[in-house]
């Protein structure tokens, strides 16, 4: 068992901005900013007290968002840091009633948001803004966009009048100069993992809501959406075979699953699944992940206890993060023999196969695997017949031959493979 801590959050919600860790504290009514070792870097008082515990927080590049689960209702708030104060900008209250056809028991949500860049120079007085193309279906009139920061650090948030691919017309003129490549951000929808499908609590559903007025857009029924406590919207290109995917990542049990939101409602909506180090050693109990955030190649999981490298981890205090890699890493080696039992006669042989897979369950090829046997050398149960190493093939498999020894017993075989 390992004892450790890092960010030591009092409350189990977390969002990451510029590598700082942020946490909403409903007791102190503030937004806490911490560095990696748990030291408080700053704190921002909330201009509006929180009545309930924040169980999930998100950062979309501009705004902080919080979720309060008040089953059968849910409250999502949008906050912005202004003048050292965390100011409440929007409150969306989702009322669970028979008459609405919905109850809400939501422990995780995500904000669909996009990070574009400005194309060309935009001068004060401009209302037509040129941005990177490909998002025409995502942005429309009535939404707000945030331009900047520009070279002097200014940003401005303006209502959109109309939008076509690559061109956004604002309702008011911009007041700053922006260069090509400056940020252009916006959000549009919220995704709520609801433990109700309508008012049916025997199933669950992923709700898509308008992030501006909280109106219900659509829901996708599925048991996979039940008891989800951590999620994150991410526009990722980490899976090269798919290109850039607008993804909704969520923790379900011991897996992190990736939804392609453009495929929601189809069989291919979940396009990747990553096993996470989330089972308590010895008992196999699945550990609770309260929140996740994704930064670069790292996936941060907020937990109150953990496990890593085959050992349980106990935190000294509060909730802390555990990391999972985005990049393919060797995660499991399956060892099996065929046949699995042979006579102890010095003659019989069996083939030992090691099968290496990464956290996505995909085979890991081209890895050199060394095999060894834990049996006594003087009185072995089996011998390795030939080389004790082999390379994994395209299916991640490497094989050697074992020969029976003269004594009966259980042979424990060990395969060692290095991530290179």
């Amino acid at each position: 068992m390992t004892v450790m801590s890092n960010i030591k959050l009092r409350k189990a919600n977390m969002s990451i901005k510029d590598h700082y860790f942020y946490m909403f504290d409903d007791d102190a009514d503030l937004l806490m900013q911490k560095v990696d070792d748990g030291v408080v870097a700053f704190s921002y008082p909330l201009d509006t007290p929180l009545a309930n515990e924040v169980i999930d927080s998100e950062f979309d590049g501009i705004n902080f968002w919080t979720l309060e689960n008040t089953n059968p209702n849910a409250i999502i708030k949008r906050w912005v840091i202004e003048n050292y104060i965390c100011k409440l900008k929007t409150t969306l209250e989702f009322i669970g009633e028979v008459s609405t056809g919905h109850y809400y028991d939501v422990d995780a949500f995500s904000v669909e948001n996009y990070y574009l860049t400005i194309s060309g120079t935009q001068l004060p007085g401009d209302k037509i803004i040129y941005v990177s193309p490909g998002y025409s279906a995502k942005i429309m009139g009535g939404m707000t966009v945030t331009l900047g920061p520009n070279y002097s650090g200014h940003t401005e948030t303006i209502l959109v009048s109309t939008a076509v691919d690559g061109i956004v017309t604002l309702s008011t003129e911009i007041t700053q100069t922006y260069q090509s490549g400056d940020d252009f951000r916006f959000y549009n929808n919220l995704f709520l993992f609801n433990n109700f499908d309508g008012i049916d609590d025997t199933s669950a559903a992923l709700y898509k809501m308008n992030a501006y007025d909280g109106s219900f857009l659509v829901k996708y029924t599925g048991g996979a959406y039940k008891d989800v406590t951590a999620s994150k919207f991410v526009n990722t290109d980490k899976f090269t075979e798919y290109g850039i995917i607008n993804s909704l990542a969520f923790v379900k049990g011991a897996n992190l699953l990736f939804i392609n939101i453009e495929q929601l409602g189809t069989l291919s909506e979940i396009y990747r699944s990553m096993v996470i180090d989330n089972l308590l050693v010895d008992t196999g109990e699945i550990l609770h992940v309260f929140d996740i955030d994704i930064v670069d190649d790292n996936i941060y999981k907020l937990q109150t206890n953990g496990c890593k490298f085959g050992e349980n981890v106990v935190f000294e205090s509060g909730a802390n993060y555990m990391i999972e890699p985005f990049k393919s890493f060797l995660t499991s080696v399956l060892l099996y023999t065929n046949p699995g039992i042979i006579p102890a006669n010095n003659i019989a042989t069996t083939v030992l196969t090691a099968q290496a897979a990464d956290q996505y369950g995909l085979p890991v090829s081209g890895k050199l695997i060394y095999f060894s046997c834990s049996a006594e050398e003087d009185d072995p149960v089996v011998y390795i017949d030939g080389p004790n190493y082999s390379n994994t093939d395209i299916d991640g498999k490497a094989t050697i031959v074992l020969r029976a020894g003269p004594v009966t017993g259980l042979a424990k075989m060990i395969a060692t493979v290095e991530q290179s």
Partner: protein
Amino acid sequence: MSNKNIQLLKRNFVIVDNYFFTINNESASLLKFNTKGDLVNAYPLTEIISNEVTCLMHDGFNFWSMETDGSDIDDGVIIKKWNLCGNYCCNLIKSINLNTKSFTNFGNVFNDTFYDSIIGDNWIVAYGVWEAINNKLLVISGNPAKIYTYIKTVYDFNLSIDFWCTGSYIGTFNIRMYKNDNEVIDFMIYHNTMYEHYVIQENEIIVYSEYNVSPINLYIDKVNDIVIKRTDHKTQFIINDYIVFVSESFTKVNLNKLEFEFMGYSRHIILGFDKVSIDGDYGNYLFESETFALEYYNTGFKEKTDSGTSRVSLLDPYTDIIESGDTLILGPNKEGFSEEVTVSGYLGNSIYGLPFFTFYDYEIGDSICIYKHIWLFNNYTATEHTGALYKIHAETNEIKTLYSGNNFSNISACTIAEITDIKQIGIKNCLMYVSAASIKFLDVYNPLNVHCNMLIDNFFGSEIFKVYGLCVNNGIIYRLQLKTNYFGTVYTETTYNYQCSPIRNFVETVLLSVDPLILPNTGVNKAIVRCSSRDQYGYPSEGASALFSENSPTGYMVLNNYNLDIEGNAKTFYVSGVEIGTITIGVEILQNDW
């Protein structure tokens, strides 16, 4: 060394491609482990299950789970078919409810939105447009509103449905009754004090009635009989004991769906259910079971098959197995796509006809899976508390055969596999189940025929340790246990782990005898030393080497190395020495195959 390996939290497992799978209902996932117990992947279930899965099977494509649906005997069991069709989820394909469930009210069935209040125990008042409910027992949806109730061959319930409206006009009221093919349906309509008798041989009966003219009453006498009667003010639909009207002209009909359609204003509906059999096929059966085995067959495409084809050619045609109406799972193909098709008939030359065209392209050797029967070990023969082995068609859910016997009672682990490694029985498709400290190998095609019986080491002294699951992989039987006899030491764990037994014949027991037991110390007297060796099935260990030994300073064995004969026996002679004392005679059996 450890007796712990996969450390499952739940009592179900199946091995697929050397990985161990288990369904954990608490995390609502299908979990995949390697042999050491490392989690390799997890697949969220698309449907939440509230009960622990007691048994898990795999047919080469689908997973099949069993759960007990409640604490009462008439809650029965549910068998569910799942698959992993490329979306990283474990997708529920279908459920088979083996129960005779009773409801006293439908509060837990109807959507809360739509009922206003419950009157008494058995009545619900509901309004307007209703949505799909669990289990598709009743569905009321759309505008006009509809009610469906899926009722099959055996009824054991009373149902009454009253419809009325506060207004004077409530629109047209249509009733459709669906029944199985080739059945005659008789019914009568009582109208203005007169009965009108109809006999319709189509699959669908449509009765049109203007509600404001005269409401109608529907009566279903007994299981399959239907009477329609009109009275003033309200319409009633009654089944079985709740009989208002009986006609001698009724004949039986198998209803499989009742549909009520309302056009007009939204209205009050009272539904009253006294005792309802869901999926009423099993109304005359009680199910108390922990385990089942799935009979399935795997083969491949014999020929390249393009999409849009209405025939498939099988490498192994299984002509004795596959029947018209059976389901074939084609694929996955090289793109990972698969589909289920129904067989319309055998065309000869390993080719089966299909009623529809295939959707995908397949190469020679691409997988074809056929699942046939569910073999269920039930503690009840029909409603008698006598064990039975049920053979249930996995597609139609029809009970094909029932083998009664208390040897099929309280069985907790079983599986089906093609056994090739037992010399004495050859290649056989066996239904294996754990009975006390042995595994019985039954002939799938004649379960009364026991091929063989394997001794397993799930006991210590007189205590027998429960086996929760059974699976065959790479010539080994894997048993899932909490308590184990691990090389002579008993371990009790809180997690489930596998224990192994080889299927191929292995030397298991050796019996040694010497006659006479006392010899004069003459240096010439002889005693016959016999040994007899058996494998785990009790078969003679023919051909194994017997190495005899003794510890006398001057006595000796005439020959000390023999091969066991066809009876598993070998004998030699011990010639006495000249000392007086106790001599230890030993024999070691060496299994010299490989």
